């Protein structure tokens, strides 16, 4: 999940009776499964919550290029390099459509981006962990993209039209990402003892941070209940996490990897896995900026932005000159 903790500004969720007629009509449309489109009226807290959620998601895509980009130049074959390049390129593309979706809510991409660089906007905690071996690229595709898909599949049904359409497109690409990640892991597990150890080490380090991607338990959270009433969010964090564990454990077993959770056990009655508690202290530390790579990630993004200022300014200056030339051309020709 790329938006882990989205505030809604709500103290509690209003009932239909408490709403004014406009808001009630809006809620009834959502309840009927209609999509809300950019020019239509929407309550201000709905708009703000969406901006937060979509921009967190966009920032996650953009920061998410870095840990995988770290291995592009070291990819072990030409094919792996091409696949990884294409994947990181897709992430930049996802960032782009999501910023565009956010822009339909009356904010600008540059403003959102500045908030990220200023440390005022969140992005997924997962990208603050380092990629230390090639197997980490497999683990990210398999676990991180797998967790992201779990969340994004349900968001295809989200109530805001542009967000829902962006999700439909993104999900198609993400499922390719997950398959390529699992394929890397399969190859490693079928390889030499050193390669298999590399794969096990990767799942050992990425398993728990992947479970953290769904955010803390939110069953009792007013923000979550409000987001669900608006159909900005469809399932709770715990439901999604459970689905992810149930889907992923058999995949790990299939290739002979051990999930690093001593409490993991199949529960016959629930037809689901019981699993251990996530280290939430670590999660909150990473969110607060104290993960292993928070500073490097932000420094990389800031450096790219600042070093590229001359480039962006030059393109604008050239466009202005070209427009001026065009405007004066008929006069000069007379």
């Amino acid at each position, binding site marked *: 999940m790329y938006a882990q903790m989205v505030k809604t500004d709500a103290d509690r969720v209003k009932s239909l009776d408490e709403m004014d007629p406009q808001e009630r009509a809006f809620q009834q449309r959502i309840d009927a499964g209609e999509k809300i489109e950019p020019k239509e009226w929407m309550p201000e807290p709905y708009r703000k919550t969406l901006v937060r959620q979509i921009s967190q998601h966009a920032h996650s895509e*953009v920061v998410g*290029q*870095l840990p995988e*980009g770290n291995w*592009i*130049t*070291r*990819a*072990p*074959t*030409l*094919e*792996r*390099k*091409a696949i990884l*390049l*294409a994947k*990181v*390129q897709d992430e*930049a*593309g996802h*960032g*782009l459509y999501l*910023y565009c979706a956010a822009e339909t809510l009356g904010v600008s991409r540059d403003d959102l981006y500045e908030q990220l660089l200023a440390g005022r906007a969140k992005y997924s905690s997962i990208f603050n962990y380092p990629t230390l071996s*090639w197997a980490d690229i497999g683990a990210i595709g398999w676990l991180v993209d797998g967790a992201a898909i779990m969340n994004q599949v349900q968001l295809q049904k989200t109530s805001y039209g542009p967000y829902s359409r962006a999700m439909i497109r993104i999900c198609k690409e993400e499922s390719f990402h997950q398959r390529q990640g699992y394929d*890397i892991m399969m*190859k*490693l597990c079928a*390889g*030499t003892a*050193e*390669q298999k150890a590399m794969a096990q080490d990767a799942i050992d380090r990425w398993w728990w941070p992947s479970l953290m991607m769904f955010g803390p338990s939110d069953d009792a959270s007013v923000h979550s209940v409000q987001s669900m009433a608006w159909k900005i969010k469809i399932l709770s964090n715990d439901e999604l996490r459970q689905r992810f564990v149930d889907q992923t454990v058999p995949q790990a077993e299939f290739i002979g990897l051990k999930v690093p959770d001593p409490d993991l056990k199949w529960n016959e009655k629930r037809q689901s896995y019981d699993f251990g508690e996530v280290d939430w202290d670590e999660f909150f530390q990473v969110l607060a900026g104290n993960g292993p790579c928070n500073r490097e990630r932000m420094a*990389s993004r800031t*450096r*790219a*932005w600042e*070093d*590229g*200022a*001359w*480039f*962006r*300014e*030059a*393109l604008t*200056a*050239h*466009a202005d*000159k070209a427009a001026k030339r065009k405007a004066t051309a008929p006069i000069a020709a007379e």
Partner: protein
Amino acid sequence: MTAITVKSGDPLLEFLLRMGDNSLVLGHRLSEWCGHTPVLEEDIAIANVSLDLVGQTQLWLGFAGEVEGKGHSADNLAYLRDAGGFRNFLLVEQPNGSYGQTLMRQFLFDAWHYYMLRRLEHSSDRRIAEIAEKAVKEVTYHLERSVDLVIRLGDGTQESHALMQEALELLWPYTGQMFDADGFDEVAVKAGIMPDPAEIRPDWDAQVTRTLRAATLEIPQEAFSHKVAARSIHTEHLGYILADMQFLQRAYPGATW
């Protein structure tokens, strides 16, 4: 696997390695930018160009492996040769520098690459003609993009103009090598495999002059051009590219990925 040395001798093989190594090394250099360019659209565009070049590498080096006849795949040739075995131009191994320097390097190479591939579409070797036909579609776009950006950045702000002029001066002495022919080339030209490199020069000159004029940049008057005794001689930069690129294949010899 230990390092592979591909013995010189066959002009066709030599030609294929030269084409493949140019795409490989430049594709690698561009991939270093992934996620670090000045704006998201550029992250996407530069990854596209890099991807095209990696794909072309697979075709050229794949064919080279077949011609060599020792069972070497494109990956073997890319990941197991040492620097002295690489035949790429010095231009493509030059460091990325600023984004402007990267784009200038790209433009100077694209202009050569485009006119080279256009001629290779008529190569006497059918397989080369087919690869060229596929690659030229991609490289037409590469050239359009690099021409457009060089013009916009040259004729942008004072700062961007100065930066692009500086990049041009820095890279210019590496461009002459693209038109030099050696004994291998002469045989390959006679066999109709490839055009005479010198024949590409007038088209390249015209393209470069046209673009730089529109970009308000000045063509360096410096006639100096880096000359090397053989294509196996490189700048210091190539060794580091290979240390990075070949790391996994070297650390885990014989593993499949």
